[in-house]
Every structure is written in structure tokens, then in C-alpha cells.
């Protein structure tokens, strides 16, 4: 009851006027010179932070993409290398086997040729030897004949002997 009867609960006109004036001025001055610049600065900062965060996320995404691209390229390159190496190995193997075949053929051919050469040489040599043997034999024979023929009886015996030895069937 004290409160109700007191001036506490009845607004005084003077205070109303002053409070409206002071609060109004406080509001106008602060709005123009404080709230607008402060809120704008805070907003600009918020936007900058948001923008930087977004661009950072984008950059990270791009980096990840690049990384995966790199990996793909690397993988492809590795595969290509494998392919090239395999091809090269195949070519090498083929070359080697071809070369081996050729070489062995050549060797066979050479051996054959050598063998043929040897054979022909051998034959030539044999015929030469035979010729020489024949010549030598004739010489020896002639020499012996010369000696033996000095003794008449002996000459005939010798001729016979020789003749006996010579096999005409032999070449």
C-alpha cells in the first residue's frame, strides 16, 4: 500500500520528458556514429571470414582433386611403363630366339659346309696320297727295277711279285 500511494508508481512528467529526450538523443547519436560503423565492420569481417573459409575449402577440394588426378596419371604412367617394358621384353625374347635359331642354323650350315669341305679335302688328299704313292712306287719300282734288272733272273721274279701284289680291283 505504501508503494501504491507513493510517487514511485506514478511516472513524473518531467522525468518522462527528460528520459524521452535523453534516450532519443542517445539512440540517434549511437545509431549514426556507433552502431552503423560497428555492425558494418563486424559484418564485413564475418563475410571475409566466411569467404576465406569457403575459398580454403575450395582450395582443399581442388588440391584433393589434383592429388587424385596425379595419382591417376601416375598409375597410368606406371601401367604404360609396364606395357612398354613387357613389349620390350617380348621383342627381346623374340629377337633372342630368332637370333638363336638363325645362329644355330648358321652353325649347322657352317658345320655342314666344313664337314663337306673336310670330306672333299680328305678325298683330294687321299687321291693325292694315292698319286704320290703311285709315283713313289713307280720310282721305287723303277729304281728297284733298275737294280734287279741288272740280274736277269731276278727281274722277272720281281715283276711277278709286284704284279701279284697289285690288286687291280682296287682303285
Amino acid at each position: 500500500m505504501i508503494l501504491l500511494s507513493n510517487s514511485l508508481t506514478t511516472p513524473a512528467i518531467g522525468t518522462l520528458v527528460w528520459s524521452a529526450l535523453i534516450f532519443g538523443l542517445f539512440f540517434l547519436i549511437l545509431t549514426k556514429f556507433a552502431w552503423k560503423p560497428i555492425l558494418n565492420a563486424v559484418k564485413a569481417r564475418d563475410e571475409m571470414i566466411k569467404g576465406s573459409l569457403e575459398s580454403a575449402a575450395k582450395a582443399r577440394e581442388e588440391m584433393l582433386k589434383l592429388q587424385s588426378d596425379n595419382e591417376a596419371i601416375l598409375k597410368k604412367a606406371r601401367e604404360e611403363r609396364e606395357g612398354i617394358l613387357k613389349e620390350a621384353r617380348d621383342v627381346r625374347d623374340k629377337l633372342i630366339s630368332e637370333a638363336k635359331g638363325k645362329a644355330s642354323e648358321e652353325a649347322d650350315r657352317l658345320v655342314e659346309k666344313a664337314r663337306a669341305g673336310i670330306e672333299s679335302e680328305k678325298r683330294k688328299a687321299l687321291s693325292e696320297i694315292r698319286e704320290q704313292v703311285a709315283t713313289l712306287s713307280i720310282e721305287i719300282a723303277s729304281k728297284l727295277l733298275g737294280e734287279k734288272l741288272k740280274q736277269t733272273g731276278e727281274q722277272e721274279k720281281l715283276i711277278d711279285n709286284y704284279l701279284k701284289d697289285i690288286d687291280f680291283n682296287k682303285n
Partner: protein
Amino acid sequence: MKTRFIIGYFFFFLLTGTTVSAFGKEVEEKAEGKVKFNASTYILEHIADSHEWHIFTKKNGESVAIYLPVILFRKETGIDLFSSKQLSHGKIFKGYKLEEEGELKGKIVSVNAEGAVDEENLPLDLSMTKTVMGMLSAAIIGLLLFLSLARSYKKTGISHPKGIQSFLEPIILFVRDDIAIPNLGHHKYEKYMPYLLTAFFFILINNLMGLIPFPPPFGANVTGNIAITFTLACCTFLITQFSGNKSYWRHIFATPGVPIWLLPVMIPVEIIGMFSKPFALMIRLFANITAGHIIVLSLICLIFIFDSLALAPVSVFFVIFMDCLELLVAFLQAYIFTLLSALFISLAVQEHH
């Protein structure tokens, strides 16, 4: 924690210091058996408005006070401006007198040639009272604070907050992100931010200054004065009505889904609702702050009611406790007033119900 202790000590010394000196007169008189200490008179004197700002009373009963300017308007004599010292101790000046007793206690009244109160011819009192001076000081402190804050924003640009910014910016962001945006939405909040911030900080600075009991720019019961809360609530009311859109007015005068025969009942109810919302704002702030001051003063009064110094430690302990609570209430009431203002405005601007 440390700051709270400092604040606690501050309150301790100021409260004990000022109250002991302020009570000097009453205690002395009581010892002589003249006057019985009247707690309710004392408390009401402290929370009510006055034309002088009482600082303390000397041992010899002489009071030291700041005499505030008196501005009066009367039809016959026009505007009168003089110091309230002219009216101190019941003096009559220019046909005015500061009534000390009765129904008009604390008010300036006209007196006729015989020295009797002329109740027919009360002057219009536009004085810069204690409340007005307290409010003016709070507004000046607020202006200095936020204009320097704005300047520092101009200096730092969009880089991280420094100094005073790092203290005030979180509060500004709190008003924006937890009061304005949730209620008003992303598209409309910006228009109302200046009002919400002004109301929040005006109430907060006045609440905090009211909690500090001494010296003069502090300790005035500004937000516990019904005229101040009336003005603040009026601002919210006017902003709400002027930003009300079509659906808001349709909701009042043709509430959707209500049969026509009920409208004669509904329209007055809705119109009462328009006024009851800011009325609740006014009463809530006034009652909370006044109640806080009354509790703190009552606890101090306990010492004098029981006339025992032994009670002082208990009383002071509770006062410190209450002051910590009031510190919370100072923020809370500023928050609630701003929050509800944002809510009422949002009800007027939302697109559909």
C-alpha cells in the same frame, strides 16, 4: 573470480562507508530518544527521485548534497530555472516550495502570499532530478564508450578485435545472434539492431551504475523509475505498431478463424494485448530493479533496526551476496527487455501466423 571479488570489496566499502555516514543523524537522534528509525521511509527516500543528490550527512546533522537544477513551468510566471538549494530546508523561493510532508511529499508546489500551498496551481516540474542526472551520466558514459568503440573499428578495419573491442564485441554479437536474428530472422533483423542495441546497453549501463552506491553519478535508481521504464516500453510499443504489417493488423481486427459474432469480444481483447505487452515490459524492469535496491537497503537497515553492530557482518555478507545477484539481474533484465522487444516486433512483422 578476481573481478567479482574486487566488485564485492567495492560494494563492501562503499555500502558500509556511505550507510554509516548516512545513518549518522538517525542513529544519533535515536540515542537521544528523539526519533525512532523508520526503515521504510529511509528506503523509499533512497529509491525515489529527488531534486538534490544527497551524498552524506555530517555528524552535526548538516547534509552534503549536490543541488540539481530546478526547471518549473507555470502559466502566469512562465519558465523558472534555479538551483534546488533555494528550496532546501523548506525555504520558499519565487513562490515555490518543496513539500516535505503529506501526499505531495518531494514535489514542488506553488505557495500563495500567505505561505499556504496552492493546490489548484501546481507547476509543471521539468527539473533535472537525480534520476535525470543519473540517466544523463549513463548516456554520456555510453556515448563515450561506443563512439570510441566505433573509432577503434575504423582503425582496426576488418582485422581481429583489440582492447575495448574484445570486451564489447561479444555483447554486441550476443544481441545480434541470440536476440535479433532468432526472433526477427536474417532478412529483417538489421533494421531493428540499432534500437535493440541502444535499449540493451542503456538499460545495462543504468542497472550497473545503479548498483554502485557512491559517489554521485552512480547510485541513482534510474531503471527502477517508472517514468524511465515507461519511456523505454513506449519506444518498443511505437516501433511495434509502426512496423506492423497487414497480417498483424488483420490479426487484431479480423482474427483469422474467429467467427464474426465473436469479433466484438476479440477486438478489445487484442487491443488490450497490444498495450499489455509493453506494459509488462515497463513493470518488469521497474519492479526488478526497485526490488533489488529495496532488498539491499533492507539488509543494511537491519543493523539500525536491531541497533547492534554485531549484526553488521551478517548484514554485509548478505548485501554482498545480493549485490552479486543484482549484478546478474542487471544483465538479465537488460537481456529480457531486449529479447521481449525483439519478440514483440517480430510478432508484428512476421509474414503469416
